[in-house]
């Protein structure tokens, strides 16, 4: 501490297991199609900030179907939203909105790494937009809930109809919400953490 020379440069990896060197932070992903309300949800419960990431297409997206659209480019900028909520106990919650377009799904591996769980936001008028997210989280074994963001003028469906349409497991919570209000957005996150808690206790 007193001298920078004594601090090994590799202290990032050496820090594992030392509680003083780690911070208690929880990461939650907000996924769903473009324009479904991810930004609204993050903004309803936290101060929202834009985050840019420079995706190296040549390294990371080989095999990704849509690279033809950006042929000749080696990097592309992906913009995401993120928000931070500091709980009264000091624990910090980070919310990350996944990039809306399918061709950026390779970013999700980094986002999903160490995440507690995910909220898949759904617009019933464009239900298919959330298929990729649902597939991804199922495959990865990351706990998730489905939150139907009800838009005015959209047809109302019962949670069970959504569950059937998305072919979800019985234990995946499906809620109907309007993420424009803070209370509703809070409840979405609470539902997710309760779901993770249930899954955790069941494993014991």
């Amino acid at each position: 501490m007193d001298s920078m020379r004594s601090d090994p440069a590799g202290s990032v990896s050496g820090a594992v297991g030392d509680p003083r060197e780690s911070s208690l932070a929880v990461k939650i992903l907000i996924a769903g199609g473009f324009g479904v309300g991810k930004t609204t949800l993050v903004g309803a419960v936290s101060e929202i900030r834009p985050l840019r990431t420079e995706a190296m297409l040549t390294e990371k997206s080989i095999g990704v179907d849509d690279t033809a659209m950006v042929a000749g480019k080696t990097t592309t900028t992906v913009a995401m939203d993120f928000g931070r909520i500091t709980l009264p106990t000091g624990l910090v919650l980070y919310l990350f909105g996944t990039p809306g377009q399918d061709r950026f799904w390779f970013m999700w591996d980094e986002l999903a790494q160490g995440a507690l769980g995910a909220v898949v936001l759904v617009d019933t008028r464009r239900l298919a937009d959330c298929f990729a997210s649902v597939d991804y989280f199922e495959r990865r074994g990351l706990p998730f809930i489905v939150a139907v963001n009800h838009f005015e003028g959209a047809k109302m469906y019962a949670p069970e109809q959504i569950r059937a349409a998305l072919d979800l497991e019985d234990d995946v919570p499906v809620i109907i919400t309007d993420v424009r209000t803070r209370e509703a957005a809070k409840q979405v996150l609470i539902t997710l953490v309760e779901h993770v808690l249930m899954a955790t206790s069941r494993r014991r």
Partner: protein
Amino acid sequence: MHDDTEPPHRDGRRDAEWLDHESGPVVRPYALTGGRTKPTASDFDLIAIIETVDVPGEAGDGHGERLPLSPEHLTICELCRTPLSVAEVASELDLALGVVRVLLGDLLDRGLIRVRRPAPVAQFPNERVLKEVIDGLHAL
């Protein structure tokens, strides 16, 4: 300057009009890092916490081979006097995450920052922590 771009299109737009939002920044993001795209240290998790280490005197002196610290490096040091996550640093600087990771690697090499990795809450969810999150959300 235009040798790596398409020639002007026939629809009458002039060169000057290329420099709109869609053409991206005039300075390529990785110009700030001297073209380096990989940080020297291990990966910086999005929610790892960066904290500036107080070093007496000028930082990085006597290491002739090293690149000098850029204004962006110094901004990070200034910002992280209050511990901040990697994502927040990138957002504050309005720089792409990859660029910020390279800059953070430089600072870590020089011992100018400290990194706290996120606790593996997700791998081993602890009921007490989860209940704390639920209660905290209710109280918001």
